[in-house]
């Protein structure tokens, strides 16, 4: 059947459905089609077939591909709504307990069959002590390097979770095992990072601006306040997002060398106009020392690169740069004097 006739057929059936029956327009179109077919049995058959094709494409056969997709978001829906319902269940249980123990047992059994709630998950926590960097292999074969003074928690059953959720305090580099059906989510200070299989660095120290830097693959980052996420910002390799706590916005920028963001793994330290307060925090974590300095000095900024050198070399550099005096007493460093350049 030629294109013009197909256009007529489509106009005819659409018009018919739209009006739920007949009107002048429908009748005119029908006449056009009859004129085209005439008494040609072949054409009449084609026309009939065309109408069958229309009807037989009206619905989509039952397809279950949506279920897997839906399962991946279902878990994220729980906190928004079911929490209150869960509490009710517990109340019901409490009153049931007052009546009969057997009933409690029954309710409890039912409760168990419900989707695992947040509280039922067994979390495992790994911590990198100050002065130490540790490497962790998660149950799903994802790899994590944890910077000194950071900790990470993950569910014991991570491998079987619909969404692989982990919690981070501090800084870590992730190499996530690719598994598109089970997104990997990192919850950290103020932000949530979602990936399917990539490598990236998250810097989320308390009281500092969180940063996520992507090395490979794609990453979605959203703000997270009290379990509510903002619209996600999507990052590609060599891109970085910084959560500006003052303006409460996610700032996306291109970085020259994302690899530099994970050089802490080999003991390097980079500072780029970093406030001294933050510099001292980084140094104390890396060398497991305590730094006590003049408060006035904290507002200075440092731009410097350190390879994996000793603490005394770092201090010598600082002494030259800011004209400070320092004394070391066991694991405590006292800093005196100094002025910004």
């Amino acid at each position: 059947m030629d294109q013009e006739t197909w256009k007529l057929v489509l106009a005819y059936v659409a018009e018919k459905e739209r009006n739920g029956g007949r009107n002048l327009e429908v009748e005119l179109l029908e006449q056009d089609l009859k004129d085209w077919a005439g008494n040609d049995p072949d054409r009449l058959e084609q026309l009939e077939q065309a109408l069958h094709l229309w009807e037989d494409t009206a619905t989509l056969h039952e397809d279950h591909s949506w279920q897997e997709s839906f399962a991946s978001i279902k878990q994220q829906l729980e906190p928004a709504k079911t929490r209150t319902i869960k509490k009710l269940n517990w109340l019901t249980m409490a009153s049931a307990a007052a009546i009969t123990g057997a009933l409690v047992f029954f309710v409890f059994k039912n409760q168990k069959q419900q989707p695992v709630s947040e509280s039922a998950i067994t979390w495992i926590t790994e911590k990198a002590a100050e002065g130490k960097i540790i490497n962790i292999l998660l149950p799903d074969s994802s790899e994590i390097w944890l910077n000194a003074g950071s900790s990470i928690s993950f569910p014991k059953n991570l491998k079987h979770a619909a969404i692989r959720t982990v919690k981070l305090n501090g800084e870590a580099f992730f190499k996530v095992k690719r598994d598109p059906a089970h997104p990997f989510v990192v919850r950290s200070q103020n932000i949530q990072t979602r990936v399917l299989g990539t490598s990236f660095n998250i810097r989320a120290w308390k009281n500092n601006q969180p940063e996520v830097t992507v090395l490979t693959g794609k990453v979605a980052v959203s703000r997270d306040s009290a379990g509510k996420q903002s619209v996600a910002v999507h990052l590609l390799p060599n891109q970085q997002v910084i959560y500006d706590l003052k303006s409460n916005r996610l700032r996306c920028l291109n970085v020259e060398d994302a690899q530099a963001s994970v050089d802490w793994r080999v003991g390097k330290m980079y500072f780029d106009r970093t406030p001294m307060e933050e510099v001292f925090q980084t140094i104390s974590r890396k060398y497991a020392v305590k730094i006590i300095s003049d408060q006035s000095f904290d507002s200075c900024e440092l731009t410097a690169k350190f390879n994996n050198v000793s603490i005394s070399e770092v201090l010598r550099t600082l002494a030259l740069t800011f004209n400070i005096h320092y004394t070391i007493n066991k694991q405590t460093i006292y800093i005196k004097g100094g002025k910004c350049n």
Partner: protein
Amino acid sequence: MGKNNMAGSNDAQEQVFDEKSFEDLYRRMYPTLKKYAVYLVKDREEAQLILNDVFISIWKNNLIPANEKAYLFRAVKNASTNYHKKARVKLWHIDGEDETPEITDLKETPAQSFQNKDRNRMLYALINQMPERRRLIFYLYRIDGLSYKEIAALLDISVRTVEDHLVKGFQFLQQKVLNNKSEFR
């Protein structure tokens, strides 16, 4: 065509919904909406993230406009536009991962579906063989009941192009069915 008249932009009426109807909405919208998202961002994983973000925000606000179809397609389109803005940089291939966006669906071969003699199933197996845009237009039109005009706006193409794709799509189906007449009815 569809009962949902998308032309009216009356978003004022909103409905509150429960888990069941949310799941229902997801199930109904998934086939076409996912294809639409993949079409826009050319990446299945990214499309999935966008789709999920849209649905999660609906859930969190606990209401959707009465005109749910129009709303959902528009939301996916907006999210994709934002994605493109963010991603307007060179694509880097470091690990050789994400080499080429994979767009085609895994599908049964027509021969397999001939065997189960299910006309509808077999027709959609054929529709899934169409070029991506044509297939998407077919879904938007036939499954979601959008008009030529609405489809044209969603895909940023002309109404005439939409019609052309549909006509060619139906022609293709008819051709295939004629060639395999013995398998039908």
